[in-house]
Structures are given as structure tokens and as C-alpha cells.
């Protein structure tokens, strides 16, 4: 992974590229996210009733049959939309896009109308149906930088805003510019295939900023017009050996 150290622009705009070619569906990102962000474990009974909370999840889709059978593993988190449908519908302004482009959820302000959850076409928002418990010794691994959520409020992927803030504070203390490589959300950090890349979209030399407009990238549900800041590197199917004459598709994913 070639990361340049060029200086990011004054106000960063955070984005993520998820490479579907590299993703193996191992779910390490989901586990790391859970550990980093104190996401509650609802239990087996709730899991069977769609009651789990997963800021980062792997959605598997199966297509075709026989030789054409394909499995696609798609990590889905909050897509951090520029035109987020979840935001204008909240009656108490508990969610908004902050200066760095992250759609943030204000836990203290949320009253739990759940309108945002319905209006998210990606279903990237999760509701605290109960006060969840961390049975001993699990409470020991709770991250002190992230608040535990109470019952009755919404939560969602924050791009590990606590890590961003820590890096920004550190840069300020050391009186230097923020270095993009200092920031890695838990999911990107833990991905063994390096399928998730996180960076500043205002930094044209950065890993994500440089690749952001390449044609191999797609967004989920472009027709809804949400302008997400998570883009997927399209899955490129390897050519079938029996169709040797067919032109080889070009992979434009890696910049």
C-alpha cells in the first residue's frame, strides 16, 4: 500500500474506498469495529430476530448457478452521504454532517423517533432496543474514548471519529500538519486483505483522494442521490478459460 505523505488540505473530508476484489468476507472489520466502538452484543435470541447492532457488516449475495455461481461479499457501513437522507428528517437535530464531512450522531440529543433509520436507504443505522449488558469480563475491553449508548437512541458508523480527533489533537500538540497515515478506522486497520482504505478526499496525493474519481469505483444506490463518501471498487470477474478469445476486462481499480 503506497501512501504518500503529502500535506492534506486545511479541512479534511474523509472518505473510504472498499475494494470488492480484495474482500474475502472474513468479517475482521466487523469484529474490530465492535471492539473499537463499544457496540453492544444483543445475544443469539435478538440476532435471530434482526435485533443486532453492526456498524460494519458483511452482506453476502449469491448470483447465478453452476459455473456462473458468484458470491459477493460487500462490507456495508454508514455510507457517510453528502446529501444524507437521515439528517433533515430528525426533528431534534440529533444528526448532521460535520465540518469534515462525517455524518455524526449526537447521542445526547437523540430522542429515538427512528425516522433516520427508516430514511437510510442503506440501513446503516441501528437502534438501541434495550440497555445492553457487557457480561464480565467483557466490560474490561470497553474503549474509554467511546461512550456507551443507552436504550432508546440511534447509533451508526462514525468513521472512528475518536481516532480522527486524537490524531488531530496530537498534530496540534506537536505543531505540525495532520498526517493522513496517522488515521485508520478500526475496520481498515484490521482488514488482512487491505480491502478498506481510508483517507482525505481533499488530498489529491493521498491513497483515497488520488483514486476517488477513477471509473472503477461505484457507489451503492446512486439513483437515490445520496452522494456517499464510501465508494466500492467494482468486482472484476476473471475471464473464463474457455472464452480465451474474449477480450480481457481491464482492471482500473488500483491507481
Amino acid at each position, binding site marked *: 500500500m503506497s501512501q504518500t505523505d503529502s500535506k492534506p488540505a486545511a479541512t479534511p473530508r474523509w472518505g473510504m474506498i472498499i475494494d470488492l476484489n480484495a474482500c474475502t468476507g472474513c468479517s475482521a472489520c466487523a469484529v474490530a469495529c465492535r471492539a473499537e466502538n463499544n457496540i453492544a452484543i444483543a445475544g443469539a435470541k*435478538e440476532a435471530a*430476530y*434482526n*435485533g443486532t447492532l453492526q456498524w460494519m457488516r458483511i*452482506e*453476502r*449475495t449469491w448470483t447465478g448457478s453452476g459455473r456462473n455461481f458468484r458470491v459477493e461479499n460487500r462490507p456495508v457501513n454508514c455510507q457517510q452521504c453528502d446529501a444524507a*437522507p437521515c439528517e*433533515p*428528517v*430528525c*426533528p*431534534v*437535530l440529533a444528526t448532521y454532517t460535520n465540518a469534515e464531512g462525517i455524518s455524526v450522531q449526537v447521542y445526547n*440529543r*437523540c*430522542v*429515538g*423517533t*427512528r*425516522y433516520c*433509520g*427508516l*430514511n437510510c*436507504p*442503506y*440501513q446503516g*443505522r*441501528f*437502534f*438501541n*432496543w*434495550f*440497555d445492553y449488558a457487557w457480561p464480565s469480563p467483557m466490560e474490561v475491553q470497553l474503549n474509554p474514548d467511546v461512550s456507551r449508548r443507552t*436504550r*432508546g*437512541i*440511534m447509533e451508526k458508523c462514525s468513521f472512528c471519529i475518536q481516532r480522527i480527533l486524537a490524531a488531530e489533537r496530537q498534530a496540534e500538540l506537536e505543531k505540525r500538519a495532520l498526517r493522513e497515515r496517522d488515521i485508520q478506522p478500526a475496520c481498515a486497520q484490521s482488514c488482512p486483505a487491505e480491502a478498506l482504505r481510508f483517507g482525505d478526499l481533499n488530498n489529491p496525493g493521498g491513497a483515497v483522494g488520488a483514486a476517488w474519481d477513477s471509473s472503477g469505483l461505484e457507489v*451503492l*444506490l446512486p439513483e*437515490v442521490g445520496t452522494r456517499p463518501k464510501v465508494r466500492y471498487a467494482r468486482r472484476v470477474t476473471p475471464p473464463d478459460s474457455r472464452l480465451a478469445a474474449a477480450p480481457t476486462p481491464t482492471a482500473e481499480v488500483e491507481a
Partner: protein
Amino acid sequence: MSTVTVAVNEPPQAAAQTLMRPMLFTGKAYRRMSLLLLAVIGWGLFCFLYQAIVGLGVTGLRRPVFWGFFVTDFVFWIGISHAGTLISAILRLTNATWRYAVTRAAEAITVFALMIGGIFPIIHLGRPWLFFWLAPYPNERLIWPNFRSPLEWDFFAISTYITASSIYLFLPLLPDLALARDRTRGWRQRLYRFLAMSWRGTQQQWHRLELAIQLMAAVVIGIAVSVHTIVSWDFAMAVVPSWHSTIFGPYFVAGAIFSGIAALIIIMAILRRVYHLEAYLQPKHFSNLGKLLLTMTLLWGYFVVAEMITTWYGNLPDEMGTFWSKISGHFAPLFWAMVLCNFVIPFPLLAIKRLRTISGTVIASITITLGMWLERFLIVVPGAANQRLSFNSWFGYYPHWTEISLSLATLAAMALLYMIFSKIFPIISIWELGGGKHAAAAESGGQS
């Protein structure tokens, strides 16, 4: 051009006595019924506290069906509230003289249904104790509510509607409260003296009161239409595929008037039976309201067909999930039950003159009330369950006991509020009946 005489045999003096009898005497059955309803309400209160303390997980709601029974009940009750003010305002503005016996009962439905409906958004909140954050009140954080949210529009629309409809219920009550003040003694007289606000019946007062009622009727229609449109926009403004529809405003308003008339007919039948008001609530009233209901049945059917056929013909994959889940899928039994209740059963009962009797219209009204509840459910839940990304769809929603209990408890609360109202206030407008006779004599009768 048949003239409807309102009070048949009784002179106004005797009519006033008959109509005030429920206010003065309370029977054993009334007390038993109130206790029963109080018990149900108490159980509902317990359920609400339990749900607030344990969390909304005690309901059947889970992602992505974030809205279920409570929102269905909310839309349903706001719909019922259109019985009143809207119908009575239309009848007043068109000067239909047969309205005298039904307007008060209808206006009271509005106020109480709005109270009940207005509770549901609070019950439904994840943190109901913070509901006041929706109100724009000055606070130390200097943060205001979000005026771009349809839920915030709801807050303004419903508070406006409840204010306006309370005023609209109260103003025509004034002369009757003064009559009650003059015909009672003791604590009752003190209560009515306070409520009647020194009404004397001078001609200046009459002129201003009649003008105020007339002008407010016009304004209240504007409010009532906007309120249910805004309720429908809770859904239509969302990007959920089957909700995001331009037809929802008029569709919801028509449905609201539809269920409102049905509720009015049911309550009128109960009042007629319990308070022996056979002389005032005549078959003619039920037949006239039945004709209105027939119009709304047809209008409702038209809207459903318009909504469904455009979805089907467009065949957009996002919307077809919801469509087929209603027509032949998971929600099909409820959908076809709704068609049965809202159209197949009531249409012949209301269209055939011989069947448009009191019992005929009441049966039609009961099925319509059930059917309209189902209709609201079938808008809320299948839309939320069918998501654009197939891996997000989920059909596991079923109501848990808290949701069912709270729905029943609020129904009991509505019944109890109405019972208390009918004990304190004359449920049929006494002065309008007297005035109706007077005016009918002056202008040789109104038309039905």
C-alpha cells in the same frame, strides 16, 4: 327536497330536559363501564412504563421495521379525528339543517381522537421522557428543533389542530352551558357558571358567536386538510420506495374522512341506544351519513386503484417488492381483508337503499373502521419491510403484547373521555335544535 324535522314531537323545553338528563343522572352500568375502562387504561399505563424502563425492544419492532403499531395507531386516530371538525364544518358551511343533531358528537370525537393520536408519537419515542425537545422552547443550549423534519411539522400541525378544534367544540357549547347553569344547582351550577363565561344570550353575543362559528368552520377545514396531509408526508417525504408517493396527501385525507364518518356513525348509534336519543338521532341521520360514507367508499377505492395500478404498470423493482408482498406475499391476507372491510362489505350495505338502515350503516362503519386501521398498517409496515437493497429487507415483524395492550388501552381512554364528556356536556346541541325549529319556520325548511 324533503324537510328534515329535527326534534319530532317534543317542544324545545322538554327537549332540553331530555338532552340534559344524562348530565344529571348516572346509572350503575355507566359506573361499571368506567371502572372497566379505567382498569384497561391502568394496564396500558403499566405497559408504557415497562416499555420506557426496559426499552423499546419489548415491542416487535426491529431494523428495518422501525415503525409499526404505534405509528399505525397514530395515523389511525388522527384520521378518526377528521370525523368531527371537518364533517361538522362542511355541514355548517353548506347549511345542511340535519346537522344539528350530529355536529356536537362529531366535534367531540375530533378533540378526543386528537388527544389519543397525539400520545402515540410520544409512546413511540425511544426516550419518551424527552418529548418536549420537539417544542421550540428557549433553553440553555440555544438549540432549536429542526424545522425541516416532517415530524416537526406534525408537532405544529397537531398542536394547531387540537387548539382550533377545542375552540370550535367549545364555542357552540356556550349557550348550552348557560342553559345548564340556569337549570342546575350546587357544584354543577358553579362549574357551568365558570364554563359559560357569563353568556347571557344577548343579540350582540348571538351575532358574534354565529359569525365566529361560521368563520372558524372555514379555517378549520383548511387546518384539518393540512394536518392529515402532513401526517401523510411523514411517509411521502421519506425515500422509502413505496412511501415516496405524491398521491399520499389526498389519499390520507380521503381515508381520514372515510374512517371519521364511520367512527361518528358508531358513536351515534351507541349514544342513541344508551341515552335513549331515538327522537333526535333518527334513521334519516344515519341514512344521510351513510350516503356520505358511500361517497367516501368509492373515493377510497378509486385512490387504492390509482395507487396500485401505477405502481404495477411502472414495474420499478424497488416498488414491486412492496406491491407483491401485499397482493400475494407476506401481507396478502391483511390486504385482502382490508379490501373486504373497506369496500366489498360496506358498498352494498350503503348503496342499496333498503339496507341503508341504522344497523346496516353501523355494520358498514365497524368494518370500515377495522379496514382503515389495516390500511394504515399496510402502508407503514410493508413499506418499511421492503428495502431497496434486498439484504436489508425483513419480514419478521409481528406485534408484541405491549403494542397490542397500548393500542387497546388508548381505545379505552378514548371511550372513557367520551363518556365523561357526555356526562358533563349536552352531547346534542340544544340551542341549535331550538334554533333549527325557529329558523325552519322562518325560511320554510332546509333540505336534506
